[in-house]
């Protein structure tokens, strides 16, 4: 399939879906509207709501808050994950002691932590960041741990035979290997940083995309809920594209850098 055909077909799917939605929610079929506007709104209303948000400029504040929370969650979670991942991988005894607890905490659905974080950190930015951190940390942690553990023995022996001491092995062998594993999970960890922020906002906040959606839902403004969802999707796709650009630069040495999943 050529690029043009593919793009045309992709656009066609969107057009058909939106047309069907608009038709079923406004035109009665056999005397009955199949998608009652109260529950399903319609594309035109949703679109005008999005336009209203952007033309009045309200949306920028919420986008900025969500972006800021995601960035903080990603950075803090990554730094923590890298440090602990390295520590555990180089100290198998520590890893063995903490292993069941790591598994336990990771098994916990993070949503249940939201109320606790709201109590501890208040309804502002920090409680959302905390929620995002708990998600990002484990992904980065597991990947860095794996990256350090899975350095090929030959490469390690080669480093030793070339005269590297432990510190140099760390810098030239373990660290690049761990980073490559971490970067390969960049899409997942960045995505989870956003999830943490939005879920946190949804469960209690005064700003952000999650807050917008929650507010609209509170007054049964279905158009607002859908509009929030579309803005959120576009937001995530833009971030994902940025990650792809970064990833290609960072993993230039890897034959698989361009393909994913």
């Amino acid at each position: 399939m050529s690029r043009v055909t593919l793009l045309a077909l992709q656009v066609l799917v969107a057009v058909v879906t939106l047309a069907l939605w608009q038709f079923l929610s406004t035109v009665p079929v056999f005397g009955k509207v199949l998608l009652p506007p109260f529950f399903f709104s319609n594309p035109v209303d949703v679109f005008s709501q999005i336009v209203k948000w952007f033309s009045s400029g309200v949306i920028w504040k919420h986008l900025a808050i969500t972006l800021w929370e995601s960035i903080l969650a990603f950075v803090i979670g990554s730094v923590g994950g890298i440090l602990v991942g390295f520590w555990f991988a180089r100290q198998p005894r520590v890893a063995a002691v903490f292993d069941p607890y790591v598994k336990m905490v990771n098994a916990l659905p993070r949503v249940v932590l939201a109320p606790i974080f709201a109590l501890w950190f208040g309804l502002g930015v920090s409680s959302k960041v905390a929620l995002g951190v708990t998600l990002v940390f484990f992904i980065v942690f597991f990947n860095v741990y794996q990256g350090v553990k899975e350095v090929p023995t030959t490469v390690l022996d080669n480093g030793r035979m070339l005269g590297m001491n432990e510190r140099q092995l760390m810098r030239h062998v373990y660290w690049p290997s761990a980073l490559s594993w971490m970067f390969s999970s960049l899409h997942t960890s960045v995505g989870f940083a956003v999830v943490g922020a939005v879920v946190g906002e949804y469960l209690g906040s005064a700003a952000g995309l999650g807050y917008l959606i929650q507010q609209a839902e509170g007054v049964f403004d279905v158009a607002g809920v859908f509009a929030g969802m579309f803005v959120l999707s576009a937001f995530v796709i833009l971030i994902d594209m940025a990650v792809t650009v970064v990833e290609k630069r960072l993993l230039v040495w890897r034959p698989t850098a361009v393909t994913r999943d």
Partner: protein
Amino acid sequence: MAMTEPTAVALDSATVAFRLADGRVYTAVEQANLSVAHGEFVAIVGPTGCGKSTLLSVTAGLLKPAAGSARIFDKPLSGLNRDAGYLFQADALFPWKTAIDNVAIGLEIRGTPRTDALARAQQWLTSVGLGAFAGRYPHMLSGGQRKRVALAQVLIRDPKILLMDEPFGPLDAQTRQIMGNLLLELWTADRKAVLFVTHDLEEAIALADRVVIMSAGPSARIIGDWRITLPRPRDIAEIRMEKDFHALHREIWGVLKDEVMKGYVQSTQAGAA
């Protein structure tokens, strides 16, 4: 000979054993005596799984012998062998470094300023025929090119002893010959002691001053030691046509053949059990 130059590598009744998962002890190499003189090129040949590589790891200090000792330039070896460069059978380049960085790293970790290290690395890449590939990452190079980079990576540190573990094993026949000639050319420039492990008897005779034959494992022993008096400089491809080469090959193969068959039978039995 030993009066003037200390022996580069001397293994004295070195025995190497591993503890298997079920608690049994597997003796890979039994009482190996082997010496490599300064500037001598010694090839070890033996059937698959006879412990040739094990012996090399002992010399490198990556493995400790269960009994016996390894002496490097008349000093007992403890820890890693700092006088040795090791060319691995598998790919051992750092995949996240470009070719030139892979070569320069051996100098950089020694404290050579980066610009100097890079300049020397570029020279080495040129002398292994990869001057134009400095910026490539290992995955962008062919198997033969990666071996060239690995050779430059080891030689830039100017080790007194060169340990090579079937370095050209994964390459195709033509590339092997080219690499063999390159190795001889670089080795002739400054004669290092070389311990070269291979399963290819022809390659061993073509390259080495001495060919050492090991018996089939387990408890492999050194069962033969031939001096190869073919004149140097040699061309790997052409030397195989010489009469003397054939005579040596026939003689050594006579001993090696039985061990190869034994090794083959053992490996099939081990597979069945």
